[in-house]
Each structure stands twice: as structure tokens, then as C-alpha cells.
């Protein structure tokens, strides 16, 4: 699922209401009207039902079976879940995913905020610079991952070469267990920085200038204005960035697959990489489905907690 798909679903939480008054009383609408509705709705309803709803339900069924994708399924009840919970690798992949999120989110948020604040000022060629910072967002994760593998190449990559100039012996980056996750985090932050910047910039531009004037009259300095006007007024955008980043963070895969494949020694094995490996490497599709449902449950729980918790810190103007 792409970033943009999620965005909208979370932002527009307005109650689903009927926006139109019926053109004619319902009783008078006959089968012809029914056909019209069907003609407009079926092109989207059929694919969504067949390729989202049906697989969703069958994933639940598969998770209760032993299955290697080839021979017949064998019903095992909740065994897959029990095995996963007992398996230390499960805790490890959730731990690695959490490590990714904890490293990535502050980096991309603080970076995006600094950029948004800078570009919110009277700046020459603002939209050009904004365009440059946004560029990585439109590129494919595989290309980005490959480029970063090259930049972070321990032997003759640019980063270690530059570090060498100032006398620092660069680490082995993605070739070293301790540095594989930081490498992925670095590349991810670079790619998503522009996205966060654009969201926060839109939030900043929506702040009423009168609030700053009022704060100045009250003698508030730059820091106080930032702390007591900008941050609270920006909280809806911040909330949005945090929710989206957490959802996407738990689903991190493309960059891991292309940069490290989960290695070295499983040091960057994340949940989705594990789902992929269980299915296509170890022929344990039942366990993979169980794990994917566990992941979904975690994402849902984290998102719901944030939506409930937002009352404490998000200020809607």
C-alpha cells in the first residue's frame, strides 16, 4: 500500500454522510435506476471484492493451516500462532522493525520540520528548492536502495571516502551487523524527508499570522513563539506524519530487501521480509499468513491508540 493511499484514509475521518438529497423519492426509482447504480459501481466493487476482501478472509483461513503453497493444506488450528509466539525469531523481527521506526521517525520528522521552517521564510526560488528536496519521494525504492548501497560501500563508497579525508575510519555499513539497520534508516530518511517537509510546510502556511503578531505584542521571543504558537498549531500535521510513518514503518520491506536482504546474520530482518521468506523460501505459507495477521493487528492497535491519544496533544484550530 502506498503512502498516499493511507494518507487520505486517515485524514478524512469525517463521518460518512449522504451529501445529496435524493433526486427523486426512493420509491419511484425502479430497476433502471438500480442498473445505473450497478453500472457505475461494479467496475470498482468487483476488483476490490475479489482482490482485497476475499484474500483478506482467506488469509485468516490459511493462517490456521499448514501449507507449502504446493501440496494440500492441513488444518492445524492455532498452531501457527503458538509456534510464532514461541519462536525467538518472531520477537527478533518485531524488534528490528521497532529499531527501524525508532531510528527513522525522529530523524525524518526533525529534518522535515527544519526544512519546512526554512522554506517557509521569504526565500529566493522557494518552489525550486522545495522541488529538489522532494525529488527522492518520486523515485523507486529499489533504485534508491541500490544507490545507497553504493554510497555506503565500505571499500570505496563516497561516504567512507569523505570520512577518510577527516581521519575517520568509516564503518562497514550494510556489510556489518551493527551498522546494517542504521544504513537502512539513513537511506529511508533521505527518501522520505521531502514528503514530511511538504506536509509540514502546508501545515505551517495554514497558521494564522495574527497569532504571531499577538505573541509578539505579549513580548514573546522567537523560541517562545515557536514553542507556544508554531508547535501547537502544527500538531494536526505532526499527528498525520506520525500516524503515516508508523503504518509505513511497520510495513518496511522494499529497501530492506534491496539493501541487505535482512542480513548480515539477520541483523536487519524485519517483519515483512520474514513473511516473504517464510512463504517463498521456507514453504511455510500458513505461518506467513499468521505473521501477517499479527502485523496487521499491531498496526491497527498502534493506529487506534494514536487516534484516541491525539486528544491530549493535537489542537485543531
Amino acid at each position, binding site marked *: 500500500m502506498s503512502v498516499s493511499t493511507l494518507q487520505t484514509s486517515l485524514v478524512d475521518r469525517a463521518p460518512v454522510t449522504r451529501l445529496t438529497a435524493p433526486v427523486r423519492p426512493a420509491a419511484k426509482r425502479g430497476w433502471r435506476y438500480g442498473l445505473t447504480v450497478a453500472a457505475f459501481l461494479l467496475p470498482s466493487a468487483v476488483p476490490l471484492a475479489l482482490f482485497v476482501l476475499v484474500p*483478506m478472509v482467506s488469509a485468516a483461513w490459511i493462517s490456521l493451516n499448514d501449507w507449502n503453497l504446493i501440496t494440500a493444506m492441513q488444518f492445524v488450528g492455532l498452531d501457527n500462532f503458538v509456534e510464532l509466539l514461541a519462536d525467538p525469531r518472531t520477537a527478533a523481527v518485531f524488534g528490528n522493525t521497532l529499531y527501524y521506526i525508532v531510528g527513522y521517525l525522529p530523524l525524518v520528522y526533525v529534518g522535515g520540520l527544519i526544512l519546512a521552517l526554512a522554506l517557509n521564510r521569504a526565500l529566493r526560488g522557494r518552489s525550486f528548492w522545495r*522541488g529538489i528536496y522532494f525529488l527522492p519521494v518520486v523515485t523507486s525504492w529499489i533504485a534508491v536502495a541500490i*544507490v545507497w548501497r553504493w554510497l555506503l560501500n565500505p571499500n570505496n563508497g563516497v561516504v567512507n571516502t569523505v570520512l577518510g579525508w577527516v581521519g575517520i575510519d568509516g564503518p562497514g555499513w550494510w556489510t556489518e551487523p551493527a551498522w546494517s539497520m542504521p544504513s537502512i534508516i539513513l537511506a529511508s530518511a533521505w527518501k522520505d524527508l521531502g514528503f514530511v517537509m511538504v506536509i509540514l510546510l502546508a501545515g505551517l502556511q495554514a497558521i494564522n499570522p495574527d497569532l504571531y503578531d499577538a505573541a509578539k505584542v505579549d513580548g514573546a521571543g522567537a523560541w517562545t513563539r515557536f514553542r507556544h504558537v508554531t508547535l501547537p498549531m502544527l500538531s494536526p500535521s505532526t499527528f498525520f506524519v506520525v500516524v503515516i510513518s508508523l503504518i509505513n514503518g511497520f510495513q518496511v*520491506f522494499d529497501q530492506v530487501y534491496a539493501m541487505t536482504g535482512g542480513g548480515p546474520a539477520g541483523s536487519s530482518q524485519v517483519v515483512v521480509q520474514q513473511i516473504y521468506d517464510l512463504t517463498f523460501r521456507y514453504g511455510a505459507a500458513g505461518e506467513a499468513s499468521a505473521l501477517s495477521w499479527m502485523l496487521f493487528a499491531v498496526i491497527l492497535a498502534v493506529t487506534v491508540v494514536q487516534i484516541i491519544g491525539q486528544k491530549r496533544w493535537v489542537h485543531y484550530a
Partner: protein
Amino acid sequence: MRERTTSRTGWVVLHIAVILGALAMFFPFLWTFITSITPGAGFSITPRLWPENPSFAAYETLFTERPFARVVTNSLMLALITTIVQLFTSATAAYAFSRLPFRGRGVVFAVYLATMMIPLQVLVVPLFAQLKTFGLLNTYLGALLPTFASAFGIFLLRQAVNQVPRELDEAATLDGAGHFRIFFSIILPNIKPALATLTIFAFMGSWNSFLWPLIVLRSPELQTLPIALAGLQGQYTTAWDVVMAGSVISVLPMLALYIFAQKYIIQGVASSGIK
């Protein structure tokens, strides 16, 4: 709200910081290109800012030794079909949710929105099994089918259709136009900016998508760019010029589209962040 920068020095410092930051952000793109035209870039040769013997040999390798012409065609074709179908299914659904009241519409719309919350990873195994049953593994159709309807696209276009004044429909109804006429001659021409935004997002999504094509398209001649690119990495472990040339080919069309349609892309993202 745009704050005035107070001092002249502040103004200069701000500009220098923004420009240096932009250079740092852009550098990986530049380096990708430079590496791709440095013959033999790899373990022994570190590319310089300007290579001694620049050459496009790596690109030639991709198109002669590797099936890159085919791969690019595949990506282009899948992205175009996905985009066209998504525009169609999203626009018709948007019309139904905005203009065709029926019992239970609110519930149906809620279900549509809920499909956006389901991670692809949950669907991968059963989708794989489903397509296997129908013999659609390793076919373009198998890669395409799950992309045909996008709840995001429907949502985006519904917002746009809602903003088209209802007086226009009513006037057309008085002239004897039915729903199909209203849809084609009134609604579609009035939501062009939203259609443009969806076109870009659908194309971008398909062009860059990885996990699903990776699973469905196993034979080399069916592969899309991101998959072929990931494969290159395994085959040319030390020939970075070849791998980087592949990256350039995959990034270039998106850059072109981006330069051309920056306004729609950034507005699309920005508007999603505001309530």
C-alpha cells in the same frame, strides 16, 4: 504564513543552508549518473566527480546483454494500463458515491475506505494462491488485476465530484440528459485537475511497485524495472557502472514526469495532510 527574516546576515545564512542542503539531497542522483558513465567503476576504481573516460558502455550492456528493452516496455505497458483502468474505475465509483443515492451507500463507502487500511503483505499469500488457481501466475494480467481499483483514487475523485455544482447536473437533467451523459459531458470535464493528480499517482505507483510484481512475474522476460534492477545487483556485484545505469533508466521517466507535473504532485501530497 511567511515569517520575515530579520537581518541581512540571517537572510544570507538561510540561503546558504538551504542551497547546501539541496546539493546534499541531489548528490546521490548526480553520483548515480557519474558512476554509470565511469567504465569499470567497482571495487578497484572509485569514480571521480568527472570520469577520465566517460562512456555509455554500461547502458549498452543493459540493452544488449540484458533484456532491458523488454523490461522497460513491460514497466511502461503495465503502468499505462493500470493508470487508464484506475481512472475509469475511480471516476465511475466517485460519481456513484457523489450523485447516485442508494440504500446502504454510507456502509459501502466505509467498506471501500477500509480496504485502504489493509496492508498488501496480508494479502500476498492468498492472492498468490488465488492467481495460481486461475493460472494467472507469471502473466501480465496477474500483475495487473489487483491494481485495477484504488480506494485512494476513488476517494480523491469523490472529493472533486462533490465540488462540481449540482446546478449543472440539474440543468442538464432538464435538457433530458441521463446519468451517463451527465457523467461524461459535465462531471469529467469539471474534475480535470483531480484526474491529472490521479494519473500521476497511479502511474508512479505502478512504475515503482515492487513486492507484488516480484511475486507474480517470475520469468525474466516478464519482469518490470524494479525487479530487473534488484536482479542486476545480484549478477553484477562489482560492476557498479552497470547497476547505476539501470538505476538511471528507472529514475529518469519519473524525474521527467515530476518536472512536468510538480504542481499536481506536491498539491496532492500537501492537501492530504491538511484536514
